[in-house]
């Protein structure tokens, strides 16, 4: 799925990284706990989260994730957006709740990780 499709499915607004909307993403995960992202995520390229702080960007950077979706209408400040720009990470935000946002993407074929 292309990042532009993620945007469309989630009726999301792009906050930075417009030039990367054609990138393909293969799987996603939803988490508000960055510790869990670091512990359990493998090869996921989209992170959906309701957490807003610079360590969300940093976590995505460490995990090679290309796109972060802020759910529940959360809006990051300019410093966070600037950091994402530097790291070449697409940021978008949607008014959808976490469960709904994940469900829509999953239904559209963007899978998660199987239990290990």
């Amino acid at each position, binding site marked *: 799925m292309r990042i532009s499709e993620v945007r469309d499915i989630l009726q999301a607004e792009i906050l930075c990284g417009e030039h990367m909307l054609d990138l393909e993403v293969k799987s996603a995960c939803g988490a508000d706990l960055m*510790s*869990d992202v670091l512990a359990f995520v493998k090869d996921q390229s989209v992170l959906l989260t309701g*957490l807003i*702080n610079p360590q969300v960007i940093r976590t995505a950077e460490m995990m090679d994730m290309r796109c972060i979706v802020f759910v529940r209408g959360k809006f990051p400040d300019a410093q966070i957006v600037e950091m994402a720009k530097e790291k070449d990470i697409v940021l978008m935000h949607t008014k959808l709740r976490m469960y709904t946002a994940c469900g829509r993407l999953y239904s559209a074929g963007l899978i998660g990780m199987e239990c290990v």
Partner: protein
Amino acid sequence: MDPVHLHFDIDGSDFTAAGEASSEVKRVLRRLGFDGEIIRRCAICMYEGEINMVIHASGGRAEVYIDSSSIVMELVDMGPGIPDIDLAMQEGYSTASQDIRELGFGAGMGLPNMKKYSDEMKIESEVGKGTAIYMRINA
């Protein structure tokens, strides 16, 4: 390749800056042409260590030694120390404050993660003196 040594002073007062050293390690490893999975494991270990130093120990220092066979990360702080290392190594055990949990950390996964993603990990800690962590990842 010639061995590379990186030194970082980790600022314990700035949660926003936590992870800058990890970011730099990642950048250097990529430039040196290491495998993507190795780079990610190093990044996770280093980042968890950095976050821990900021959360628990008011910062510290990190030495990273890179050569073609391995990446060694040594993280040293002068924080409160770990009274019971076996307990601290258990998944889910954390002494982090509610404030830290609200920032998305403090789930008790930091040390277990560092062990999981490294090939060798050693912890030396003395209460009231500080903690030293050694991690090696084979390239």
